[in-house]
């Protein structure tokens, strides 16, 4: 009876998700199998093209790099924030979340000003006499990664602060009273208990980077094309909707596979479930 009530209450939301998310995605994917060339022709074309393989590989590479860097920076920051006294904690969280108050485009644009030939970084290096000619930093894979890390670290911090705060202080104290050094306490108590949060953060950041459009478009251009920018080009410029749908399908499958792999890893690492 209780279960029945739960389903009834959840049905409007479920219906919304099915009608507005699941069905359109399925319809998009179905179109890729119904081309004259046979059911897998579009996929053969996608994986048969060296350029498309390179874009896919680059997208995975960039997303994983962003995820790892954001995990490290986010975890360290969140650890400091979660250990701070109450009044300071609020200030630190506001400071961490501050960049989220502006749009993705604005934040990416800021990096144009920092990394440009006449930008802050190059001017400083030239004025210090460290370099004679400005570096070409914009429109490289590095620029895209740096900007995306900047975009996603706040998300990571927010996710992890909650998790780290929920680790009871008693556990930490128990660990040190049993003779563990701070480093051992961190490795054997804090880190394993933070794994669920790390995974949620990693999944958020990875999917966000993998599907991003504005940042690679602004800071990478054609030279650093990623799946999002390639899909836009296929759909809006060459009007090849089937090719764009194929890219979307490949992205969906890869995202699900990588998220599943992260979850499996999490289960193995988490002392609560392992």
């Amino acid at each position, binding site marked *: 009876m209780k279960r029945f009530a739960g389903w009834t209450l959840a049905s409007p939301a479920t219906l919304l998700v099915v009608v507005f998310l699941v069905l359109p995605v399925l319809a998009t994917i179905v179109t890729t199998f119904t081309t004259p060339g046979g059911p897998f022709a579009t996929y053969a074309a996608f994986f048969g093209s060296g*350029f498309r393989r390179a874009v896919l590989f680059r997208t995975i590479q960039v997303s994983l790099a962003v995820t790892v860097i954001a995990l490290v920076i986010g975890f360290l920051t969140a650890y400091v924030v979660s250990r701070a006294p109450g009044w300071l904690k609020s200030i630190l969280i506001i400071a961490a979340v501050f960049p989220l108050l502006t749009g993705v485009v604005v934040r990416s644009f800021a990096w144009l000003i920092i990394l440009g030939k006449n930008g802050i970084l190059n001017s400083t290096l030239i004025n210090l006499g460290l370099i004679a000619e400005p570096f*070409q930093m*914009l429109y490289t894979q590095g620029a895209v990664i740096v900007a995306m890390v900047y975009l996603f670290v706040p998300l990571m911090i927010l996710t992890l602060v909650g998790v780290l705060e929920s680790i009871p202080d008693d556990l930490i104290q128990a660990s040190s009273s049993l003779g563990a050094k701070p480093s051992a306490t961190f490795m054997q108590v804090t880190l394993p208990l933070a794994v669920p949060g790390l995974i949620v953060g990693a999944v958020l950041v990875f999917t966000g980077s993998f599907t991003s459009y504005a940042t690679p478009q602004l800071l990478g251009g*054609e*030279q650093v094309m990623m799946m999002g920018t*390639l899909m836009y080009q296929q*759909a809006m410029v*060459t*009007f090849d909707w089937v090719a764009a749908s194929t890219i979307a399908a490949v992205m969906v499958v890869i995202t699900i596979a990588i998220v599943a792999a992260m979850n499996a890893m999490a289960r193995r690492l988490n002392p609560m479930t392992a």
Partner: protein
Amino acid sequence: MNKFFVTALAISATAMLSAAPAMAQGKTLTISWWGFNGEKLESIVLAPFREQCGCEIVFETGNNGERLNKIQIRNGAGVDVAYFSDSFSQQGIEAGLFQKIDPAKLPNLAGIYDLAKDPQGGYGPAYTIGRVGIVYDTAKVATPITSWEDLWREDLAGSLSLPGITTTAGPMVVMKAGDHAGVDAFADQDSAFAAVEELKPNVVKNYNTGSEMINLFSTGEITAAVAQDFTLGQIQAAVPTVEWAELEEGAIATLNTVNIPTGAAEPELAYEFINFILSPEIQQQLAEQGVDAPVVTSVELTPEQASLWTYGADVIAGLQRIDYAKMNAAKGGWVDRWNEIFGM
């Protein structure tokens, strides 16, 4: 009392009749265009046209690709007048989205340059004409650029921006690369793209919108670009030392066309509007205000006004034309090859 009522009725009826011709009463014209220069177009074109037709005007704005896509999704419906650059209107024609034009309904066609009257085989006329050429910063490029060949110069290493392959001017770069290699790019793609590959060391980043390229100039990322001349004024506002290169082979002509989609709800109103924007008075004002270069032969500009424009019979005679039907047929394959060079 009764007398007063009748008078009031008569006055209001007269007012209503004089306000608008009964013909277009309550009609709405839908225009698809870029959305640039909105205020100037409102005062020069839209306000007087509303007065003439007594109709409402609504818009669909965006870049060429997005807008053509929308018309295609609606099977040619939803818009009465569609502004496109010629390579995109050619795509629209090939997709069967536009009606043939009846020249008898456009008396003002008689006053425009021959190349603008019917550029695409029975479809819409061009209302403005532009050039694709090279712009460069004279303060940073020591030797003047005088030829398309100069794009390959070594002193431009890491300081050039090309229009992306999916823009109006992008495929023209491939054609010029064909010239550089001494082949016809349509017949011998391999040699043409080998020449595009030779350009790679000079390219910082390719651009997809005019504003993106203007930013590249103003932030000092580039010192030269292949560009359309309507961007020149804005580039010079940001970087005064940028000049239009006078190329010995000549620049390439681009035409912006106006078409009536197949599903237009108000085709007669669309004809009236197209005829209106081809009138000498409107074309004169648009040119003087720096909106669009004129196609009407009788428009007179001062040398200063003309300096930014593709203006005058001599300039127009010196332009190279492109076979868009051929170009669009090749474009699909070109996009991939271009991506392979710049996107790997």
